[in-house]
């Protein structure tokens, strides 16, 4: 009986290991404190939304989206963070932030409080809007955001349009 019990325990251990080991190996720990980054100087957290200035009414205003119709107003807003320290970059830290849309003039993104009627509690972001022209090319929407930190004076470019995270312009 003892031998049988030992066999059972040994087999259960083998099976448990077989199940558990791949699960442990497959789950790297979440980076609870990503700062300082080993590779990046700045991180950009971008949102694109349907704006109230749309000439073509979106399904829902202010909804977060990466697909916009011609005539929609796109609100671009973002946080920029110093990836070494985790400090959120404000108007005191950046000399200029610019939205660069393919085939369009550059648009400055001022650092300002969120919303049409901001108050003291409104969060501040780098933001601008752009209405998709009625003849703007359909398909993948190419843009990037360039920022110039005061401390380096060198432009930093954020290109969010990479395969798998593409923005689209639709009719």
């Amino acid at each position, binding site marked *: 009986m003892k031998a049988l019990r030992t066999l059972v325990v040994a087999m259960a251990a083998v099976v448990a290991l077989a199940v558990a080991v791949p699960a442990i190996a497959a789950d790297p720990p979440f980076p609870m404190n990503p700062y300082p980054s080993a590779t990046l100087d700045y991180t950009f957290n971008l949102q694109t939304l349907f704006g109230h200035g749309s000439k073509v009414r979106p399904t829902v205003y202010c909804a977060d989206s990466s697909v916009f119709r011609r005539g929609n107003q796109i609100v671009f807003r973002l946080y920029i963070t110093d990836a070494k320290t985790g400090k959120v970059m404000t108007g005191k830290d950046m000399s200029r932030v610019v939205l660069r849309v393919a*085939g369009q003039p550059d648009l400055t993104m001022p650092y300002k409080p969120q919303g049409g009627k901001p108050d003291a509690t409104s969060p501040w972001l780098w933001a601008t809007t752009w209405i998709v022209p009625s003849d703007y*090319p359909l398909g993948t929407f*190419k843009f990037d955001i360039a920022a110039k930190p005061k401390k380096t004076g060198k432009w930093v470019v954020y290109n969010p349009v990479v395969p798998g995270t593409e923005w689209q312009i*639709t009719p």
Partner: protein
Amino acid sequence: MYKTAIRRRLALLALLALLVAVVAPQVAPGEPHPVTPPTIPGVAGLPGPVAAAAKPAAKLGILKATPDTGPPGTPFVLTGSGLPANTNLDITWSTATKQYKLDVLPVSVDFYGRVITPMEVVIAKGRTDGSGNLRLSMKMPQDYGAIHDIYAVSNGTQFAKGGVLVERTYSVKPLKGPIGTTITIKLNGLGAQPYMDTVGVIWDNRYVGFLSSVTTRGQATATIRAAGPPGKHVLELLPASATTPFLNIEQSAVDYLGFKRYTFTVTKDAGPPPTKVVWPIKVKPTSSERTTSGTATIDGVTAKASAKSGTVGSKVELMATGLTPGAATIQWNTAHENALGWYTLAYTPLTNVTVPASGNIRTALTVPDDLGGWHTIEILQEGKTKASVPYRVDQSLYKGGINGKRFKRGDLIKIHLKGVGFTEMDNILAVTVDNAYIGYVCGFFSAGDTVLQIIATGEPGTHIVDITPTIYKQDKAGNDIWYGGTPFLTYRTDYPLLALGYRLPAYHFAYTIVK
């Protein structure tokens, strides 16, 4: 006593678990892989040669297409400015190749969804003038529909980007006729991406099935039948996220795909049309992979069957040379599903023969009342395989299929088929009654013998039952919820098993309810 019994059960469970852990890798499925689709007449290939990899210029310009919306074949003018002067440009077009991903096992063909490989192809060449302007007259190619990116490329750099919407076109004919009229639906310009390559069909707010164009480059043709009673009926063609219609597509990211509504007028009830079996178009298989044990011979032995396929009860001659004089067994290799839904191989002796001194045999066999699909006929001598020959069992009607043409309300209607298969793509069939999807029938556990039993309901008059190929399991790919037991109306041209040489039909029955 009780504790001892528990211990014994625990020990047995542990042994079983260990056995599964040890044995599983040895019986692990083969590698799922994309399968080259067969050539379908009228289906276009890639609209141009594959373009070399390119990256956008630091300052990307734009190209204007005028018009930028239209069905395949629409002429348009492409213009751009601010490009490098006096430069030859490749005009690239974003598209994709699409294949089904299958895993061909001895006991099944498992479905792993669709593989979409995005790519750019060169559809035109142009040259800028001395001021960097470009102007080209072009046509939207016959390709997958929806939105395509266009780039002007030189030496690996994309200098400008444009885009067009290749609209889908619809044709539904006829739009009137008696109950049972065959209605042909032709679509063109279905997209390459999910949400864009399937269209759901609705008849009077009832789900009929779906059309797909995975391997047919945006084209899809299918038929449905007009269901009664006489009068006007609404036929709708809507984009489908998977197989089922997306009913508020106008609130989605692909609202531009649109939908179509038609009115079909059922002119009269002329009684039940004859039972019809409609087979897929004939195509050349692209894969030689087969279920059960496939083709094999040992050195010096040849073997072949007088036919590659037939129905249950068919006669087939098996011819072989190079065998050892003496006893031989002809064996039928098939599959079996146990009560837990596990698939296993199964073997049935068909006949014993005596091989003469010549070593040659020619023996008549009867295809057993068994599952459909690819099997092998195996020649065994002294317990060893000398040869195995693939043979496909096609589905068939049993005694005309339906147990009558006139029923009273409450009567039991039976539809009987033979040769339903054992893979995940031929072991069930989807059923609609009067164009309303009601479920599926399965033939695996019953060795291909498949009986649909429904109760006669509804108003007096003619009613229709349509049975269509469909895919049983769709969970293998994890996140691809495609298909799922609903009528695959484009089974004739776009079905995954066509590449493996399967021919799966749809069945069309009708009956009259009398007072």
